[in-house]
Structure formats: structure tokens, C-alpha cells
């Protein structure tokens, strides 16, 4: 608490020392993200401050990074535009990750590591089997996704699991084409670390 105000003094000073005067950001947000993260990685506090050093109203013309949007729908959409896969799929009664799922999660991990976003990993099952066992199976699937993302360097503290079992199907026909869509780990951005 007490030290929080100091950041507003220390950070601009650091910024000035490191980069000279703060510059206008480059035009495209995608590049913006890359530039920021690659160059700023060493001192974490600066990264935290870069977006809006002083309380600037949003209508200010400074182009903002969509990943910084307070609207999490915008954030989810932007992440997907950059190659984030919201869903990985499982075989029947399985909670182990396929090669395809691992490849998607590797890309997701790379993207997540450039942000401080919080992710809820939902575990889902198809309608076959009992609701009770499927709830446990969904939990195991969500945890398989979480464990793999963590092994790739995503901070476990940013990942939350939530099993819905067979209670929230995306598809309701009783056939394999539909069941396969329901056996999934679904990743949703639900917040941001270090946000007041």
C-alpha cells in the first residue's frame, strides 16, 4: 500500500533513463505488444506502467492495445485473432492431451506469457456416462490443460479450473460429431493480474 505511490515517481524516471522521453506508440497494436514485451522484459515495474503512465481518460487518442481493454470480450477476441485456441478436444473418457491439443496449448502458452491475463480453464464432457462421473472427468481434463500450460512456463497462479461435466454442452445432438465438440478444455480470459 504505502509503496504503491512510489511507482509513479520511480517508473517515469526509469523510463526516461532507459528510453529517453516517452514516445508515441507505433501504429499497429500487434507490433506494439511485441515491441513492449521483448524490450521491456528485464525490469517488470516498467512493463506495468507503460500502457498509461498517468490517469488518462480513455478518449485520449493514444492507440491502446486491445489486450489492455477492460472489456474481456475484446481481449478474448484479440487473443484469438493472434492465434489463441480457446478449445482443445479429448477422446472419449480420456483426460490425456493429444498432439494436436499440445500444439494448440504451446501457442496459447506463448501468447499468455506476454500478458498478465487470468485464464479460467473449463472442463467439459459429452453426455454419455453419468453426470456425476462426467463432472469429475471434466475436472481432470481442465487440470490436464492447466498442468501443460504451467509446464510451458505460464504462472499457475493465473490459471483457474472449473469443471462443468456434461452440464454445458456446446452441441446437443446425440451423435459423435456433436459429442466430440463437447469433450473439451475451454479457455476463457476472466481477468487480469495486477489490476486494481
Amino acid at each position, binding site marked *: 500500500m504505502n509503496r504503491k505511490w512510489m511507482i509513479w515517481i520511480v517508473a517515469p524516471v526509469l523510463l526516461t533513463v532507459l528510453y529517453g522521453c516517452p514516445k508515441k506508440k507505433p501504429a499497429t497494436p500487434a507490433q506494439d505488444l511485441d515491441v513492449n514485451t521483448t524490450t521491456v522484459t528485464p525490469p517488470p515495474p516498467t512493463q506495468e506502467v507503460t500502457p498509461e503512465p498517468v490517469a488518462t481518460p480513455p478518449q485520449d487518442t493514444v492507440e491502446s492495445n486491445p489486450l489492455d481493454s477492460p472489456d474481456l470480450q475484446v481481449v478474448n477476441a484479440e487473443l484469438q485473432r493472434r492465434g489463441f485456441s480457446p478449445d482443445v478436444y479429448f477422446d472419449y*473418457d480420456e483426460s490425456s492431451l493429444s498432439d494436436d491439443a499440445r500444439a494448440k496449448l504451446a501457442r496459447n502458452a506463448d501468447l499468455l506469457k506476454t500478458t498478465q491475463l487470468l485464464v479460467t480453464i473449463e472442463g467439459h464432457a459429452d453426455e454419455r*456416462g*453419468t*453426470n*456425476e*462421473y462426467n*463432472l*469429475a*472427468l471434466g*475436472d*481432470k481434463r*481442465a*487440470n*490436464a490443460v*492447466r*498442468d501443460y500450460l504451467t509446464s510451458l512456463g505460464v504462472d499457475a497462479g493465473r490459471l*483457474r*479450473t*472449473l*469443471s*462443468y461435466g456434461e*452440464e*454445458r454442452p456446446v452441441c446437443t445432438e446425440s451423435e459423435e460429431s456433436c459429442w466430440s465438440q463437447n469433450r473439451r478444455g475451454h479457455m476463457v480470459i476472466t481477468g487480469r493480474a495486477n489490476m486494481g
Partner: protein
Amino acid sequence: MRSRAIHLAVAALLLGMGLTLPRIFAQEPPAQPPQEEQQPGNVTLVLPGNQQFKPIKLGIPAFRRLGALAGDAARAADEMEQVVRQDLQNSGYFTISGPEAFQGLQLTGDLARDLEAYRTTGVETLLLGDLRAEADKIVFEGRLFDVASGQAILAKRYRGALPVARRIGHTFADEVILFLTGQRGISLSSIAFTSDRTGQKEIWVMDYDGQNQRRITGHRSTSMSPAWSPDGESLAYTSFFNGPPGIYLAELASGRKRPIVNSGSLNTTPTFSPDGQRVVFARSVDGNVEIFVTGRSGGDLRRLTHSGAIDTNPSWSPTGGQIAFTSGRAGNPHIYLMDEEGSNQRRLTTEGDYNDGAAWNPTGDLIAYTSRRGGRFQIAVTNVVTQATQILTSGPGENESPSFSPDGRHIVYVSRKSGTKQLYVMDLDGSHVRQLTNEGNNDMPDWSRLPAQR
């Protein structure tokens, strides 16, 4: 429950004949305790179904209406008569001859002579009912006669407000059952279940015969896995209304809901210990679901399984001491047993490739569960000692989630044979299937224990 019983103002009055009425049918064997064929490896399971009990031939002529019964009172009288007939029919203890069977009899109104007439029909016991209105109440008098001796063997009188007509009927039916069989009836028991008829899965309760369906939760989320407390006054259940699934307690009389366990990412499938003081349930820990026990108000959390595979859907044996649960530790879900401290874990089911949802019978010797056989889910029953197993349902329709009646003679379960999930009751031998629900999808039934002794 209790307050409603008081509300009833049901006055039971033994008319008698100045004598202590003999239980003349005491020689009727009370439902035999299940005698299993003990040979190991023999999968034939003799279930304590109706086939072992010789049904009592019971005659029930149309109840008499004394005096003017109009409007609501007439409807209440009709309903009460129908409830008595239906309860006795549902019990499976009787072969009932209704009013039609007696149409040809020359009845005089003189009881001694009329009993002669009834004797010719082969009925062993005769049930006569009288109904009349008294101010805004209905009065019902039911009498049982031993046809052979012509003696009155049971007489009861009830007086209550019209809305409790069904309850009076249930109460009398159970008195008849207790008197003639020595067994407590189930007519006043209830079934908790989930229904999505309001658009979301909520917890509901209904009478054992499917009547009086009422919603218990209004979380507008997903609520499931209701489990009766042994005293029948509250339900533990799982709900997502607060985000991650937690376990909550609903008190039926007050309508109050409170959390039992809602920390962590997943808590599901609660059931009570036989004394009602503890709850066993499944909880996600270290990336997997395991079985835990907690106090009825939460706290004192103790872990019972450490398998690394899914362990879920536990059920405490009614006689205490053991917990049945589902585990995926052998690859597929199967039913396991353990002592209630978590020791002595052992596999019960060996047949079928997907077994879940263990439900004990009241005497603790049988477990019913959902078993996948040949790609289809069916209701199976296994003897916990001999492991003899019998499949009670057949055909398509995904039959799931069994729960025993408090007398152990019936099973409520879910079937999809109509296209939606509905609740059905069958006798323990798979016969006499009756549909209880038809609105929306209805699932996860849990049959209450017997209501507290009145």
C-alpha cells in the same frame, strides 16, 4: 415435515370393539430377508421382490359417502379414496379387488350378511371406507375385516382440512400395510430430484407417487445431486450458483440454504452418514477428484482416498461402517467399497465397462447402480457379500441413477426411453414400472428414508 404433520390435525381414533384387536395376520411372513444363493461364482441373485411374498387378497368396495359431499369436499373425498387404493396397489403386498368385482353381489347393508357375499369372491380381507364432510373438514373412517371370521381387525378415523386429503389417505394406507404385513409402508416418503423444467436445473421434491412436485432451489444456475438427511428435514446438494461447484444444505421447512463446503474448484455428490452428522462427498485436490468427509455444517475436512484416478459419487451404507464409491483406478469406472475411515478399499463390480452411482438398500446388503452392458446403460443390483449381480432393466433408453425406497422393495431411477429424462419406479425384480414425471428433464432421484415415527 413435522410442523405439517401437526397442521394436519389428523385425529386417529381406534374404534375397536372394546377388545384389543388381534393381529390375525401375524402369521403372514413379513417380507423375507433376502436369502442369497451362496455358491461363489453363481450370478443368480434372488432379490427380495414380490415373488417371495404371497399377496394378500384384499377387497376394497367403493367407499361410502355419508351425507352431502359437494364441490371441493367431494373432490377431496374422491382423491382420498383413490390414494388409499393406489398406495395399497403400489405397495405390492396385495391383490386388490376393486368395486367392479363386487357389482354382481347382493349386498344388503347388513355387514354380517354382506361378509358372506364377499366371502364368495375369495377375498381374505375387506377394507370398508366411509367419507363425510364436517364443516370445512373431511372425515374418513376406514375399517378392515377378516372375511373368514367376520371380525373387524382394524378401525381408524381421520378428520382434516380438505388440502390434506391425500395425506390422510397415505397415512391410512400405511396403517393397513403395517397391520397386515408388519412392515412400515412408504406412502408418506418423498423423492428429491433435479428438474430443468424452469429452464435451469434446480432441486425438486415430490411425494413418492409423483404427486405434489415442488421446487426447492431457485438458484437459476445448475444444481444437482440432492441427498436427503436421514431425518428428512433437509437436502444436501451440489450447485454452481456461486461459480465453482460447492455443496450446500437446503432446510425444507425454513427454505434456508447454507454452504457446507464451497472452497476449492470442485465439490460434488454429497451423501449423509446414517446419523446425519457427517457428509461424504467428492472434491478436486491436486488436479484430481477424491473422496472426503466433512461435518454436516462443514469443517473437519478429512480425505479418504488417494488413488490419483477419479474417485467420486460416494454413498454411506445405511447401517454405517462402509462407503461405496466410484473409481476409475482400474481404467474404467467401477464401484468400490471402503471402511468409513478410508481403509480396506476394494472393488465390488467386475461386470460391465462403466459402473457408477452406487445406492444402498435400507438393510445394507444390496447396492443398485448404473451399469453399461453392451453399450447401453442399465440398472444393476449387486449383493455386497456374495457379489451376485442382476440387471433389472433392459432395452434402449439409458436407464440410470437408481435409489431404493425406504422399505427396500422398489427402486426409483431415470430413463430416457420417452426421449427425455424422466423418473420411473419399479419393483425390485424390475416389474411394475410406473412413470412419475413428465415435465422437462428429471434426473438424479434420491428417495427419502421413512418419515419420523408419528
